């Protein structure tokens, strides 16, 4: 399963709900969720722990728009929209945690 998260981890519970529920697969952070994967962010530790169970990706266009593309934490793979499409194709289903 590809888990797509688009909410800031300090504003909404979406990331926490995903991490509590899902056993594994891939997580793609898009829109306001990309902040979770920035160095030193209060949610970054959760992402670092999640790397043991999930492959984690973050959408570069959204990182760049928010001025945090240079802060991506180690282990998280940046992808563009083409990479987003490939991730959806590679997984049998996707779950958008709205």
């Amino acid at each position, binding site marked *: 399963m590809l888990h*797509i998260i*688009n909410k800031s981890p300090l504003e909404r519970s979406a990331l926490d709900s995903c991490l509590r529920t899902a056993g594994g697969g891939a997580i793609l952070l*898009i*829109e*306001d969720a990309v902040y979770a994967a920035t160095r030193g962010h209060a949610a970054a530790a959760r992402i670092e722990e999640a790397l043991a169970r999930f492959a984690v990706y973050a959408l570069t*266009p959204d990182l760049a728009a928010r001025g945090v593309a240079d802060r991506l934490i180690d282990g998280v793979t940046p992808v*563009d*929209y*083409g990479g*987003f*499409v*490939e991730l*959806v*194709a590679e997984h049998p*289903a*996707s779950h*958008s945690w*709205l």
Partner: protein
Amino acid sequence: MKFGILVNEGPYQHQASDTAYQFCKAVLAKGWQVQRVFFYHDGVNNATKLTEPPQDDRNIVQRWSRLAEEHDIDLVVCVAAALRRGIREDNLAPGFRISGLGQLVESGIQADRLVVFGD
């Protein structure tokens, strides 16, 4: 590979419609197919031809219309959600059509992947 897309929020207020649009462009760039884009909830507001955003901003509605025209993509607006929010044939932008929720279920069945964009 065929992708179905669901858009649950209107233009401008949330990024959902923008991201869905970029996703569709990337699907097409790979030579894959966008089987249908279904607009539900406030997503139906993407279909009004009456928007007039500032000159220096993107025109979200026109972008969808153009994508539909250039790549023959089926843009479907949920009739029940549209009636609730004032989207009708009268104010429908080119390339969009109004139909039932069955079109979304059909996407789920016929497309290889269904991807949801919302708030």
